[in-house]
């Protein structure tokens, strides 16, 4: 089991070090001729407007709450999906009931206008 996870660990290691290697390599080979215009902060080619550190709208929190509920659902879905090949039709019905109840939660949030941006 640990051997299969070693691949994931290796992948994570490469993914973590790759950006640093690329930036370091770029620093070694690029010419360095900075001027104030080049060093200015920009976003999508435009100059940024206002402060970067701003207070976000509280409505984002409701989206986060809905996300969390379905994130927890995935934890239950995962072992069920792994064992799916050896389970019968009854297991499918049970999971349909499980997801159906959570769909009710989503419909409730939808009907209450949580998913609409005001």
């Amino acid at each position, binding site marked *: 089991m*640990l051997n299969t996870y070693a691949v994931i660990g290796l992948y994570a290691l490469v993914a973590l070090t790759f950006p640093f290697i690329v930036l370091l390599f770029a620093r070694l080979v690029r010419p360095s001729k900075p001027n104030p215009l080049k060093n200015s902060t920009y976003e999508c080619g435009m100059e940024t407007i206002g402060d970067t550190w701003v207070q976000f709208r509280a409505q984002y929190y409701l989206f986060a709450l809905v996300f969390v509920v379905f994130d927890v659902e995935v934890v239950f879905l995962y072992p069920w999906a*792994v064992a799916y090949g050896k389970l019968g039709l009854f297991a499918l019905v049970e*999971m349909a009931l499980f997801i159906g109840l959570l769909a009710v939660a989503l419909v409730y949030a939808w009907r*209450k206008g949580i998913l609409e941006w005001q």
Partner: protein
Amino acid sequence: MILKVVFLLVSLFTVGSALMVVTHKNLFSSALFLVASFFGVAALYVLLEAEFLAVAQVLIYVGAIATLIIFAIMLTRGMMSGRTSPRNDQAAWAGLASVVLGLVLLYVVVFRVQWPVVEKPVPPDTIEQLGRALVGRYVVPFEVASVLLLAALVGAVLIAREKEV
């Protein structure tokens, strides 16, 4: 031997990130280091061959709890200025109390508790067994969990909504 080295590296990463959480000046960066620490704990679970715990750690702690913490910081006025330090003049005493409490708990957990030992290797298909148990033996708690999640979302929506629209 390799396992020990990997364990040491992962532990160093986890504890180092956790230290950064409490020492970093910017609260938002602390939250991001907390995510790194959570990933480290997930890796420790993998080393203990507790696959499902590792998956749950990534999904629940990294996915849900870290999201909520980061959102809470982003929504709080003044927190996002990047200047307010989360520390005050009680930091030294709080640090001391935490270290003492941590050492006491560690002593009890390591030396005083009689941990039950099972002389069997971990079966390779734990997640599959768990999946079968969820829809077999534990089907009622499983469906009740769904109702609980439904109630949690309805309650959260009722509390968090700004006002009647």
